[in-house]
C-alpha cells in the first residue's frame, strides 16, 4: 500500500512536468494547428544554457529567469523565421520542419556539451518530506514543481480569460481571417503564442533536468509523454493539458513501478493508442463537426 502511495506521489510530480510540456504544445496547437516536436529539445537547449550560467557562478534564480526569457526568444524566432513561410502548405510540412529543428537542437547540444549525462542542480532539497514521522516520496523540489506548474497554468488561464490580449489570441486561434478583419495583428500574436510556449518548454526542461540523466536526449521522453498528455487533454485546452499530464504521469509511474522500469515508453505508447482509439478528440473537447 505504501508502495502504491509512493508511486502515486512520484507520478504526480512527474505528471506536473509532462503537463508543462503539454501546455506548451497546446499553446502552439491552438494558435497554429501545429505540433511543435522541437519543444522538448528547445527546453533541453535552454537548460544547457542555464547549466553554463550556473557553472560560471550566476545565481540559480537569475539563471532561471534568464533562461525563461531565452526560451521565449527561441520560440518566437522559430515561428517568425521557419514556420511562417510554410503557411498554406500541406500540414505535414511544419511537422517535418519542427522535426528538423529537434535534430539540430540535439546536435548542437551534443557538439557543444558532449554526450555524457551530467547532474543538474535542483532549486530545493530532493530528499523526501517528513510527514508524521515517516518520509514520503515527495521532496521540497516536488513541492516547488507543483507550485511553479500550477502558477503557470493559472497565469495562462487568466491571460486567456480575463485580458484583452488573451481575447485577441483566442480570436486568432478561432479564425485568422476574422481576427485580421477586426484589426487584430495576427502575425504578432502567433509569434507571441510560440514565445509563451517557449517559456513553458524551458520551464519543463528546468524542472525535468534534476531527476533525469541530463544530456542532449533527456527531453525526448518528456516530449512524447507531454504529447501523450496533450492528446489525452484534447490538444486545445490548458486544463486538459494539466489533467492529461497527471493521468500520463500516474500511468507511467505505475507501469515503471509494478512492471519494471524500462517499460515506461511502452506503457505510454499503449496509453496513447487507447486514448486515440477511444476518444481521439480528447476528454475535454467537443466532437468537431466534419466539413465537406
Amino acid at each position: 500500500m505504501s508502495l502504491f502511495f509512493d508511486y502515486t506521489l512520484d507520478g504526480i510530480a512527474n505528471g506536473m512536468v509532462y503537463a508543462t510540456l503539454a501546455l506548451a504544445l497546446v499553446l502552439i496547437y491552438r494558435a497554429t494547428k501545429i505540433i511543435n516536436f522541437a519543444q522538448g529539445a528547445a527546453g533541453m537547449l535552454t537548460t544547457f544554457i542555464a547549466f553554463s550560467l550556473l557553472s560560471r557562478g550566476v545565481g540559480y534564480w537569475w539563471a532561471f529567469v534568464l533562461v525563461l526569457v531565452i526560451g521565449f526568444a527561441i520560440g518566437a524566432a522559430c515561428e517568425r523565421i521557419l514556420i511562417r513561410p510554410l503557411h498554406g502548405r500541406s500540414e505535414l510540412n511544419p511537422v517535418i520542419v519542427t522535426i528538423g529543428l529537434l535534430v539540430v537542437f540535439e546536435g548542437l547540444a551534443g557538439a557543444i556539451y558532449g554526450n555524457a549525462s551530467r547532474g543538474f542542480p535542483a532549486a530545493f532539497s530532493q530528499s523526501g518530506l517528513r510527514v508524521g514521522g515517516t518520509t514520503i516520496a515527495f521532496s521540497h523540489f516536488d513541492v516547488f514543481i507543483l507550485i511553479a506548474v500550477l502558477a503557470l497554468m493559472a497565469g495562462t488561464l487568466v491571460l486567456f480569460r480575463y485580458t484583452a490580449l488573451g481575447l485577441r489570441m483566442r480570436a486568432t486561434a478561432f479564425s485568422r481571417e476574422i481576427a485580421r478583419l477586426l484589426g487584430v495583428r495576427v502575425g504578432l500574436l502567433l509569434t507571441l503564442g510560440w514565445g509563451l510556449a517557449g517559456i513553458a518548454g524551458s520551464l519543463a526542461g528546468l524542472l525535468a533536468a534534476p531527476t533525469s540523466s541530463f544530456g542532449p536526449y533527456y527531453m525526448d521522453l518528456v516530449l512524447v509523454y507531454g504529447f501523450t498528455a496533450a492528446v489525452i487533454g484534447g490538444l486545445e485546452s490548458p486544463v486538459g493539458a494539466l489533467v492529461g499530464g497527471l493521468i500520463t504521469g500516474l500511468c507511467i509511474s505505475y507501469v515503471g513501478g509494478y512492471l519494471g522500469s524500462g517499460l515506461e515508453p511502452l506503457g505510454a505508447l499503449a496509453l496513447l493508442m487507447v486514448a486515440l482509439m477511444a476518444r481521439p478528440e480528447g476528454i475535454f473537447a467537443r466532437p468537431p463537426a466534419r466539413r465537406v
Partner: protein
Amino acid sequence: MNATAFARALHLPRQPLVRHLLCALAAAAVLYVVVARLSSYNDYQVGEIAAYVVALVGLSLLTGANGQISLGHGAFMAVGAYTMALLMNHTQTSFILELAAAAGVAAAAGLVIGLPATRLKGPYLAGMTLLFALAVPSIADKWPATFGGDQGLTTTVPTAPGSLSAEEWLAQIQIIGALLVMVLVANLLWSRYGRAFRAVRDDEIAASLAGIHVARTKVMAFAISAGCAGLGGALLALSTGVVNTGEFPLTLSIQLLAAMVLGGTGTLIGMVWGGILLVYLPQWSTSVSSDFNLGSGASAYLATIIFGVVLIVAMIAAPNGIQGGLGWMWGHRPYPGTGGRSAPAPVPVSTGD
C-alpha cells in the same frame, strides 16, 4: 512518377509490370558489372545504400502516395533486423524465408501501430510513431537474454556461390532486394490500390464517396510501408553483422525522413539519392570535422546537425527534393507529393476494376 513520359520517349512496353521488370533487369545488369569492378569496401557501401533504399521506398509510399507520416521507420527497421537475427540464431530456416519473416513481422507491427492511424491526421500520427521509435529499443533492453542486451545478436551472410567475394555477394543480395521491392511498389502504386492510396491522401471524404474503404486503405499503406522498412533493416543488419539497439536510435528514423524529403517525397528513383545521402553524409561530415579540427565529440554530431538543417531548408525551399528538381529540369510536372504550394492535382479514382 514521371515514368509515363519517360517510357513513351524510350518506347518501353505499356504494361507496367513488363516495363518495371525491364527497367529493374537493366539496372541489375549494370549494377552487377559495377559491383564486380568496385573495391570490396565500395561494394559494402553500395550494399548499404541498397538496404536503405528498401526502407526509404516504404517511407516514400507512405508519405508521398498516402499522405501519412512516420517518425518510427527506424524502429520498424529494428523489428525486421531483430526478427531475422533471432531466426538465424535459433532456427535453420532458409535465408529467403528469414528475410520474408523480417518483412512480415515488421508489417504486422505496422498493422498494430497503423490501426489508430485510421482516424488520425498528420501531427497525431507523427507523435505516436515518435513514441514507437523510443519504445522499441526499451523492449530490447528489457529482455537482454532474448535480444542480446548491449552486444546484440549476430547475423551471418550465406556463403557466396562461385567466384564471388563475400562483399560482392552481400551487395548483390541487397541490390536484388532493393530492385525487387522497387518493382513491387511501383506496380502497387500503378494498380487500383495505388490509386486508392492517392485518393485517400487528397480527400478522404471524396475517396469514401467513391467507394474506397478509407480506414482499410490507410492501414494497408502503413503495414506495407512498415514491411519495407523491416526488410530494409534486415538487409542492413547483414552489412553490420550485429543487431543491437544502438544501431537503431531515434535519429535514424529522423534521418530516414530527411533522406526521403531530400530525395523527393513520393518518387521511387529519388530514394536512391536518399540512400546515397544516408551512407555518405556521415562519412563526409567526419572528414570535414577532422579537417577543421572540431574534435571527435563534435564530429559525431555534425552529421546530425547537417541532416536537420537540410531537412528544414529542403522543406521550406525545395519540398520536391532532388528527384523533383531533376524532373523539373526534364520538363516533367512534379509529382503531387507533400510539397509544393499548389493544390494536389486531381487523381482519377477507380471504384473497382
